[in-house]
């Protein structure tokens, strides 16, 4: 091992030891690591279910699992990945760690509330784990009524309780970010000097506090319906199942933006750093985050084009869904323009950025297909939809998450990971991802429906390709898990600013001390004041 100067210095990781010092911590940086550990477990769980789904779909016949089991597999894959991994991923880990550091604060506004969020999340996750172990749930992650309230014989209530509880962790995190960003900025750090990561988290936080409570009360109504047969969503008793869909998607469509906006924040930071340039059109990128949060609340009806929604409502939702593509496109164009004449280098985080920009663009453009009323009738509930949202959530959100984890890993752990392995795994993930999900666009266009464990033989070739891609993707996710864990102990000690990046978080030592800054920094320049070319300080 290399002589480690960090061993002689007190920082947030070695200030004290023992399980209590972690479970009772109010340090936002330690809470971020608690989240990192728990969401990684949930990610592996969700991944396990995905493996089983892809295994089943290798052959046209339903031969690996029974159809009931298959229904549970894709349901629990969705629930684990969406509610317990993607929603908290970037905000709860990177946001928690970085929001106070980027704005020059000693902690989030409400540190104990922050710890409470993690406990709430964990309790919700344990409820869901219990539900899975004791038999699982088969309604799809969308819990459509009246199947979920009347017909499904599986553990709907425990999972609903788990998701309900976890929702509050998301609300409290969003609340904490909003207050922190408003009230805790360092002197001189005006709104238009904030890193775009902060703008993105601010926009995502607005969605968290406005959307999550609606799905919470909807879950309560589903539970009441199921337990007491009160009929709020049961057509036999006068209730309206489409009302459920409206309430559900009022949260769950904006929830996509909870997943993607913070990742977009990561992309802005990394792009600027490895192009050595200010993000092109800073103001546009900042406001496009708010525009996505705002317009994102007005598009939910595009999930109900074939659910008896009035054609006029569908028309308006269709137009609004295309409108939300505009701020997303603004971001993509501005990141691309940032690269123009930049001094680009290809470190691991930057590879994820390139992956994000390409895959997110495909995901976004195929979203336009689905927002069009005519094509959606054909594509609704086919694999085209599955491919579309995986391009956004996996190709977009997870790429951004992994890029961010690599970018700030030296700051978080004080160790460098292996650049060679980093680049390799970014490449493997990109290849594996495309091989998994591009065939699904074709399958969907050809008419293969979602959520069936058997399919006609003519679809087999593309399904085998997809499963092969999934196995490559799985390996791609395992590699970082191994070398990142390895680097925590054996990695080269990280310098304070290994990438020569701008931003207050890089002015602290790696890893930072408990209260982040010895004295409150004063900010006198805009974000991303890169003067290219600049050599990384190493």
């Amino acid at each position, binding site marked *: 091992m290399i002589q480690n100067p960090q061993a002689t210095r007190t920082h947030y990781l070695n200030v004290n030891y023992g399980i209590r010092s972690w479970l009772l911590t109010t340090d936002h940086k330690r809470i971020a690591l608690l989240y990192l550990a728990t969401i990684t477990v949930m990610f592996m769980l969700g991944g396990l279910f995905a493996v089983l789904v892809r295994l089943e779909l290798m052959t046209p016949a339903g031969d690996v699992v029974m159809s009931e089991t298959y229904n549970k597999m894709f349901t629990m894959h969705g629930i684990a990945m969406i509610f317990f991994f993607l929603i908290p991923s970037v905000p709860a880990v990177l946001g928690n760690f970085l929001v106070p550091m980027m704005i020059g*604060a*000693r*902690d989030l*506004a*409400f*540190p104990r509330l922050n710890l409470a969020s993690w406990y709430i999340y964990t309790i919700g996750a344990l409820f869901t784990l219990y539900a899975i172990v004791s038999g699982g749930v088969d309604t799809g992650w969308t819990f459509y009524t009246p199947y979920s309230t009347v017909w499904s014989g599986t553990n709907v209530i425990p999972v609903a309780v788990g998701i309900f509880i976890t929702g509050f962790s998301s*609300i409290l995190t969003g*609340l*904490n970010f*909003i*207050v*922190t960003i*408003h*009230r*805790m900025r360092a002197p001189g750090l005006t709104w238009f000097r904030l890193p775009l990561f902060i703008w993105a988290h601010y926009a995502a936080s607005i969605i968290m*506090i*406005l*959307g*999550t*409570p*609606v799905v*919470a*009360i*909807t879950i*309560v*109504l589903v539970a*009441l319906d199921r337990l*007491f*047969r*009160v*009929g*709020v969503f049961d057509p*036999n*008793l*006068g*209730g*309206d199942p489409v*009302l459920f869909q*409206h*309430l559900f998607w009022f949260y769950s469509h904006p929830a996509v933006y909870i997943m993607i906006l913070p990742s977009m924040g990561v992309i802005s930071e990394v792009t600027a750093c490895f192009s050595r340039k200010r993000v092109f059109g800073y103001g546009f990128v900042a406001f496009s985050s708010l525009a996505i949060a705002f317009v994102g609340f007005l598009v939910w009806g595009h999930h109900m084009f074939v659910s008896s929604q009035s054609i006029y409502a569908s028309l308006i939702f269709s137009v609004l869904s295309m409108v939300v593509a505009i701020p997303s496109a603004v971001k993509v164009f501005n990141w691309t323009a940032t690269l123009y004449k930049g001094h680009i280098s290809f470190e691991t985080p930057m590879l994820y950025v390139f992956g994000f920009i390409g895959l997110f663009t495909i995901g976004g453009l195929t979203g336009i297909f689905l927002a069009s009323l005519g094509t959606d009738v054909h594509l609704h509930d086919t694999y085209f939809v599955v491919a579309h949202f995986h391009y956004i959530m996996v190709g977009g959100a997870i790429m951004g998450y992994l890029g961010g984890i690599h970018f700030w890993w030296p700051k978080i752990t004080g160790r460098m990971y292996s650049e060679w392995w980093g680049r390799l795994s970014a490449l493997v993930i990109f290849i594996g991802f495309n091989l998994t999900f591009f065939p699904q666009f074709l399958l969907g266009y050809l008419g293969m429906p979602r959520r069936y464990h058997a399919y006609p033989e003519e679809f087999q070739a593309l399904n085998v390709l997809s499963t092969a891609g999934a196995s490559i993707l799985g390996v791609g996710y395992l590699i970082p898990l191994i070398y990142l864990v390895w680097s925590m102990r054996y990695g080269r000690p990280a310098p304070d600013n290994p990438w020569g990046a701008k931003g207050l978080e890089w002015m602290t030592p790696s890893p930072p001390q408990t*209260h982040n800054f010895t004295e*409150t920094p004063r900010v006198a320049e805009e974000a991303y004041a890169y003067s290219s070319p600049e050599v990384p300080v190493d």
Partner: protein
Amino acid sequence: MTETHPGLLHHFDDAAQQKEASTLGMWTFLITEILFFGGLFAAYVVYRTRFPEAWAAGSHHLDITLGAVNTAILIGSSLTMALGVHSSQIGRNRLLIAFLILTVVLGGAFLGIKAVEYHHKYEEHHVPGPAFSYPGPIAGQVQLFFALYFAMTGMHALHMVVGVGLLLNLIRQARRGRFTPAYNTPVDMIGLYWHFVDIVWVFLFPLLYLLGRH
């Protein structure tokens, strides 16, 4: 505003910043609460528009006297809460404790009357579920009315119970002399919460009890 007091947490620069953060945090939380109840109100509007007769019929089975008394009690409790906040701001600790106790008593009275109303509904078989019974062809729709009645007032009552718990904790802290004119943020914040719960009822009462009668 650089004075220090025991309530100031290390990560804030001064008491003013801390108070601003708490206030913004509470208002943000209340916005979340509005959306939480908003889902129920949306369901109410949809079904009321669709089943006006059932809604009129359902309203007639609610006890307007008890509802009105409860409304008066709750508005009274908001007054005592506001007076409590004022007392803490001018440093009258004994007065603060008295007003907080009064607020708890009024909140408890509201919950008691609500329980009586629920009991009547139980005896009349108006609680939705297998035991629900209502004569005539619109029984299912009337059951929907009562389902939303219980969901909305039940969720409101739950917020009241939480509020009473918070007030009891405030009283305990006030008896230890924790609040001064310089630091009374918790009183102020729980006051905001209490007023919010009050306002929810101000919407619930006319929507559930009064509107259908005309």
